[in-house]
């Protein structure tokens, strides 16, 4: 059994930032465990730009953003394992890790979960039809094209308006493919407005809202999909059915935090975020087990992943030092109208706390209101809100002092 102070599961955006911050705060006996053959995680295949605007005040591509962190890991000689998969984790914070050298057991005083998320697949959204080749999730297509030099198809339909789907629409167009259309089931796009503009409209790719794919056909290779409009009550409009010849269907229909290990260890998973339920320090229900990045909640901007990872290390250090905290009775945050979720879900100590939210529907001139019973604690105004854009608010410790309950809603 190898003992470590901190083990970080996942060497992507969250894991790298968490490792560097822990190291800078004096923890040297730490280890990053990465399943893939390289550090940087999903950033490696995100060769588009727009990363780092908040952290570095410049627009970087994914590999450039990752390299800034990888360089620091290497300069500081922070240990990491590549090609190494954590197979088991338990509540005593013991890990079983498999790699080419064999099976290894580790025990850590604290573990930071930074495993990221994965894509929803055709199975998850149950599209009927045959099972031809040519149906990919957008992220898989992105890896094939950007890392493996494998073109996925020539005539492409994209289902779902997530950011990766739209970015792939542009990428495929620039590589010479024809992107016929992007269909979105909901009445609004699920990706960022700037991507609708620069990835779809720039190349005259239509975005069909309230539309979905209801059938796929093809022997061997995909030959056509059937598209239909969605009516007001959520059912398909029969007359709107039309067949679209294509050889490739990309799915950009959502991301799921990857929490199999967390569940194994007994971490309570929130049914809305798909990530662990955490307190204001990012600590799960298992003391010493923390979570950050897309494994906690799916982010739309990598800068926020890095910031979240840095933020939770304060709690990690506090736990390792056995520091006394201003412990209060656990307060569960009550979610009011207009909000899909809040992270953290509970408060156990009073400190400056970052809250992340997602709203239910797009809106204009909205105010986020924090209340204790009928007493106003804090409010923040937003000129416009969008489910695609996470809202983040920092509440200073003074505002949270002496509260017995906390309700938050959007008005």
């Amino acid at each position, binding site marked *: 059994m190898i003992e470590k102070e901190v083990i970080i599961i996942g060497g992507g955006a969250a894991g790298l930032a968490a490792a560097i911050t822990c190291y800078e705060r004096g923890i040297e006996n730490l280890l990053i465990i990465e399943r893939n*053959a*390289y*550090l940087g995680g999903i950033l*490696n295949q995100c*060769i*588009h*730009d*727009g990363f780092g*605007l908040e952290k570095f005040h410049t*627009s*970087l*591509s*994914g*590999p*450039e953003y990752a*390299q800034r962190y*990888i360089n620091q890991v290497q300069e500081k000689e922070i240990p990491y*394992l*590549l*090609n190494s998969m954590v197979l088991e984790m338990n509540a005593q914070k013991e890990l079983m890790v498999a790699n080419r050298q064999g099976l290894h057991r580790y025990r850590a005083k604290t573990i930071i979960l930074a495993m990221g998320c994965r894509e929803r697949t055709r199975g998850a959204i149950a599209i009927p039809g045959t099972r031809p080749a040519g149906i990919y999730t957008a992220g898989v297509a992105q890896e094939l*094209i*950007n*890392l*493996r*030099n494998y073109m996925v198809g020539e005539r492409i339909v994209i289902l779902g308006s997530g950011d990766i789907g739209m970015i792939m629409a542009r*990428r495929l*167009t*620039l*590589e*010479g493919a024809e992107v016929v259309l992007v269909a979105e089931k909901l009445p609004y796009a699920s990706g*960022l*407005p*700037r991507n*609708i*503009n*620069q990835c779809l409209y*720039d190349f005259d790719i239509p975005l069909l809202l309230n539309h979905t794919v209801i059938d796929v056909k093809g022997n061997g290779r995909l030959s056509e999909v059937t598209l239909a409009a969605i009516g007001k009550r959520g059912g398909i409009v029969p007359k709107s059915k039309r067949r679209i010849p294509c050889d490739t269907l990309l799915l950009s229909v959502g991301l799921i935090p990857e929490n199999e290990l967390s569940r194994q260890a007994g971490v309570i998973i929130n049914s809305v975020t798909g990530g662990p339920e955490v307190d204001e320090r990012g600590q799960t229900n298992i003391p010493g087990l923390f979570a950050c990045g897309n494994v906690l909640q799916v982010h*739309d*901007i990598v800068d926020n992943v890095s910031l979240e990872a840095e933020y939770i290390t304060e709690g990690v250090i506090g736990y390792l030092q056995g520091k006394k905290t201003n412990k209060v009775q656990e307060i569960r945050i009550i979610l009011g109208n207009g909000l899909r979720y809040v992270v953290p879900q509970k408060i156990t100590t009073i400190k400056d706390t970052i809250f992340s939210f997602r709203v239910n529907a797009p809106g204009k001139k909205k105010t986020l209101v924090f209340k204790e019973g009928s007493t106003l604690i804090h409010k923040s105004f937003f000129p*416009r809100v969008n489910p695609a*854009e996470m809202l983040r608010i920092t509440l200073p410790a003074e505002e949270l002092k002496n509260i017995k309950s906390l309700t938050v809603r959007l008005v």
Partner: protein
Amino acid sequence: MNRQFVCIICPNSCQLKVEYTGKKIMEIKGAQCDKGKEFVKNEITNPLRVFLGSVKVIRGDFRLLSVKSATPIPKKYLKIIGKMTHALKVDAPVEIGQVIAKNLLNENIDLIATRKIFRKDCIYRNKG
């Protein structure tokens, strides 16, 4: 003429209401910073975008090198530059920022590397 633009400079995605005739801008509403105003000016006269793509690598630890245009380029050139990248090859190793192609289309379009690539046989590699 009134038109709405979505600024693509940062994730704020500011919605800009613009009043203009021809290439003359009368009013821009909704920009949270000056970059948005600059963006609208370009959109109306000569829309600019950063080109992002990839080129083949010889003897590298990754098969492809991701590249970007050194500066934003006119939007109308994006597709043709995309085609041109198919013919480009580069020898490993490559450093971030290294110039991969110069003065494409005689329009001063340079492509620079955005990934660090080691030689396949080098003991220091990205890949373990």
